């Protein structure tokens, strides 16, 4: 839709009166427009091409008209010019002129009676100023013009001059698709009002005229029609309306389905959530599984049970493996310690004691198997492994001197070669021992005791210094019963697990470094990663916590994959593996890659559930131990067997 300002068009017509203006009328004022009504053009241009009618002008539809009316402030002063086929917006002068004409007034500015200036006199002069007769040449056609026309004609014939290309219609070029770049949406209209209900008719009145009432045959017909028209489901939502007549509104009964429908509605709402539940849009169920590598890619780890070490007569509490990986020692409730050859399951030696063996560990340096039984700690030289080491150990024990003064709490005593072939050193305490733990260099032996009820808890940890033959209580105060202790593998750091918490002490500075917040109710065992930055903690409430000491004092991960109490957690010394055993008869092996890069979190993937031990008196696997070099794991159980699982 275009509208040309009247002023512009008038000035242009003034200036270029004879020039071609495309939308201007060429048909002449004396030709009625009606003649062109059924054509799509008006007149012809100089090239004898049809001048197309402007599409928009005069043929606008109602919507355009309406939009124009709403948007264009000058709509009221826009008129359609039949001759040019254009809308013309009238100027203020035009409007005032029209108003003057309408009111039959003259323009007050116009000077109606101006003085007459006779510039060109109408009177013929007797003696004209110029009276030369017209020249002869003015009657002869121009030669130069003829030559010029001839040239043009030749050029047209030769095709050098071409007709003017049709100008692009500015009206057409201004049209465009308003909705083209709008994205297609399937959104429903926000609000489509429901169709209005039909107003009730006479038949729905409580007191209809007699002609609306139905007789039995009609009701029957209505029912059969209903059955034939609707299927089973639709029929449940439809009801047959049978007009009834009551003499007064008072006699209209209550809606007979009212209570029933209310009850049904209440049933519907009964378990309806009050809040709108946020549904996660999960298309692929695998998205829920965390992105962890597959266990097949994390080999080697123990898979199958290979060997069974049989010989003990009661549950086996503790295991320890010789550093070469050739010998395994186990301590049992039948008061014996057995040493096994791992590769053949041969029992190489049996040591009999008076009390059940609660803990044992091989000295990391010397050939001394340390056994805790009752309130005693015994150091045995089993004479296995390197000959030189065995001899050195013999010599070392011979030269060992200790404080022989009669101490109440602990008493050291040597046993010579003659009296016993294997036992070399005995430390006797006044109270029973729970656990022993060698420091990595094999000089200090930490020992967890079970203090009597009248003793303070500080008596529960005793550290023996082997080379100096001394014992001391490192802590003056301790809260909570100590469950488990560990030495840091490289630094002088000592880790104590009490029932509810883990405390980390620096032994040289003699201060508490960290206290870890454990979310288990009762810690059963802890272990420290061979690199020393991660701690694993198992609890009797079947939880396993992984602490990253660099990260936080709260657990980095908590695992609840065991169904019963966790008895033991262990790291592999060489490979990225850890295992946990539980009373539910399973030992779960997990892969754990720990990175030296502080920004990278440890990668922990449970890879294998190992089963094999029987459950006896609600106890199953009591201890587990990785082979020092191979991806093998030993588990000892209440069924008095040790089982070896290999890759």
């Amino acid at each position, binding site marked *: 839709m275009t509208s040309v300002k009247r002023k512009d068009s008038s000035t242009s017509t003034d200036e270029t009166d004879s020039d071609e203006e495309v939308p201007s009328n060429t048909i002449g004022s004396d030709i009625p427009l009606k003649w062109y009504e059924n054509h799509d053009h008006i007149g012809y241009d100089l090239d004898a091409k049809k001048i197309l009618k402007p599409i928009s002008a005069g043929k606008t539809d109602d919507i355009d008209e309406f939009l124009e009316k709403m948007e264009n402030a000058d709509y009221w002063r826009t008129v359609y010019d039949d001759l040019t086929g254009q809308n013309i917006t009238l100027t203020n002068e035009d409007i005032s002129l029209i108003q003057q004409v309408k009111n039959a007034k003259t323009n007050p500015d116009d000077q109606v009676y101006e003085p007459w200036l006779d510039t060109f006199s109408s009177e013929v002069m007797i003696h004209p100023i110029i009276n030369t007769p017209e020249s002869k040449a003015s009657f002869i056609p121009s030669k130069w013009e003829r030559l010029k026309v001839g040239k043009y004609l030749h050029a047209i014939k030769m095709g050098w001059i071409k007709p003017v290309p049709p100008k692009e219609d500015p009206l057409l070029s201004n049209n465009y698709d308003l909705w083209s770049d709008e994205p297609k949406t399937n959104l429903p209209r926000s609000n489509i009002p429901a169709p209005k209900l039909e107003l009730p008719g006479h038949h729905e009145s409580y007191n209809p005229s007699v002609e609306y009432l139905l007789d039995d045959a009609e009701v029957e017909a209505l029912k059969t029609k209903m059955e034939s028209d609707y299927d089973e489901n639709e029929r449940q939502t439809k009801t047959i309306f049978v007009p009834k007549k009551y003499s007064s509104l008072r006699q209209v009964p209550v809606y007979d389905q009212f209570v029933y429908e209310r009850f049904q509605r209440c049933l519907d709402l009964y378990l309806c959530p009050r809040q709108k539940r946020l549904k996660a849009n999960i298309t692929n169920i695998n998205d829920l599984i965390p992105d962890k590598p597959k266990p097949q890619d994390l*080999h080697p780890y123990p898979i199958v049970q*290979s060997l069974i070490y049989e010989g003990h007569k009661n549950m086996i509490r503790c295991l320890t493996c010789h550093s070469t990986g*050739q010998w395994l020692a186990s301590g049992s409730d039948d008061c014996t310690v057995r040493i096994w050859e791992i*590769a*053949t399951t*041969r029992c190489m030696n049996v040591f009999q004691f008076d009390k059940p063996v609660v803990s044992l560990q091989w000295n990391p340096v010397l050939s001394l198997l340390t056994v805790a039984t009752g309130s005693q700690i015994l150091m045995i030289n089993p004479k296995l492994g*390197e000959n030189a080491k065995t001899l050195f150990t013999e010599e070392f024990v011979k030269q060992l001197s200790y404080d022989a003064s009669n101490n109440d709490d602990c008493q050291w005593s040597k046993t010579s070669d003659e009296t016993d072939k294997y036992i070399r050193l005995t430390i006797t305490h006044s109270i029973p021992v729970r656990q022993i733990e060698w420091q990595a260099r094999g000089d200090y032996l930490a020992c967890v005791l079970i203090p009597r009820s009248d003793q303070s808890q500080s008596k529960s940890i005793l550290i023996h210094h082997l080379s100096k033959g001394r014992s001391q209580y490192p802590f003056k105060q301790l809260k909570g019963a100590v469950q488990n202790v560990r030495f840091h593998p490289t630094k002088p750091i000592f880790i104590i697990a009490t029932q509810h918490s883990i405390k980390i002490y620096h032994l040289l500075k003699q201060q508490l470094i960290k206290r870890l917040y454990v979310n288990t109710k009762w810690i059963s065992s802890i272990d420290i990663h061979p690199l020393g930055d991660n701690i694993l903690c198992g609890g009797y409430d079947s939880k396993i916590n992984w602490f990253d000491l660099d990260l936080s004092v709260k657990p980095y991960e908590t695992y609840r994959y065991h169904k019963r109490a966790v008895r033991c957690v262990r790291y592999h010394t060489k490979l990225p593996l850890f295992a946990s055993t539980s009373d539910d008869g399973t030992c779960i092996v997990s892969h754990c890659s720990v990175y030296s890069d502080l920004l990278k979190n440890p990668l922990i993937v449970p890879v294998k559930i190992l089963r094999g031990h029987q459950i006896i008196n609600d106890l199953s696997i009591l201890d587990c131990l990785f082979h020092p*070099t191979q991806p093998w794991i030993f588990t000892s159980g209440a069924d008095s067997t040790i089982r070896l699982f290999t890759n």
Partner: protein
Amino acid sequence: MSIQVQFITRLEKYSVPDTTLVIPCSSTNSQLEAILKGLLKPTVSSNDLSRLSFDFLCLNKLVRSSLEEHIREKDESLLESIISIEYIEKFQGPEPEDVLMHDDWVSACRSLADSILVASYDTKVHLWNNQGEHIISLPGHTAPVRSLAFIYSDEGEHEFISGSHDQTILIWKYDQNKNNVQSLITCKGHQGTIETLALQKSVFCSGSFDKTIKLWGLEEEKEKSSTKECRLTINAHNENVSSIGWTSTNELVSGSWDQTIKLWNMDTIQSTQTFKCGKAVLSLDISPVNGLLVCGFTDRFIRLYDTRLQEGYVLRSTFSSHSQWVSSVMWSRKSEYLFVSGSYDSLVKLWDTRSLKAPLYDLQGHEDRVLCVDWSIDELILSGGADNSLKMFSFK
């Protein structure tokens, strides 16, 4: 469905015309044998036929399932073409001959000529003859004996070496006629238990739990000393050297718990090749006939390697039938296809390298783990185990 076959053989006695036969695809060994016997009827007497028994080789593998399955496993398209089936005379399975009882576990056994040498966990070395008569128990070690090697045995004179948990190797010379030990040399030097011994003419090697291999000479020292030092030590592996063997006079192969097999040039003491196996090696043996290496692993498999290939596909085949660790393997001294294996599942199995899935024979009898097998003499297969017994099987 049927298939076209052609019977071929190397047995001249029992040759058949090379006509193409059409037989059903589902034929098994027994059906093939019936067909073959039908073909042989005109040439061989019926007495011989009833005594004979054949085994069939198709595509270089012994037929153990139906013919169709057997071929499908290799290449399905072969079902269309004419298949040639080679038949060989089935040898008789080893017969149990005798059981020699000991006081403790039998950890190693070797036979030479008509003597049998047994190492036991009772710290003694026992000498038997092949009639099952006990000749003598030789005490010398202070801990269980784990490995043995026979040097020579002739007319009652025996020379052998034994390695033990007490970290020493003893070189014995025993004269049966005079009933005395003529010389006993102790080889000291290892810092771990001796796990394996391998003899080669006048030298022998020992592998130990201290991760080293030591080379010792057998020649007698001038001043008759009773101890001997090793010639050289190789820090061979990162873990227990569980088994070693000589492939040639100057090349040694060693298997270890560190999951590698290494080849050693004993002239330069350099490792020439290392194979990673992924599982701890428990035992290995080199075939004297074709030089292939067979290994027993902790993952219950036996694997066959060709060590002579410098690179490329070294693993030839995998034998799976045992259900426990394969503690011991040994090649036949004569046949290039046969070897025996002993496993912790208390079975000794006789294998043909052309049959991967199933062994030729299971030698039953042990009631506990089998710790050692021996097939040094072709007629005699020995196996000893944790049930304190040494079983003898005769093989024809």
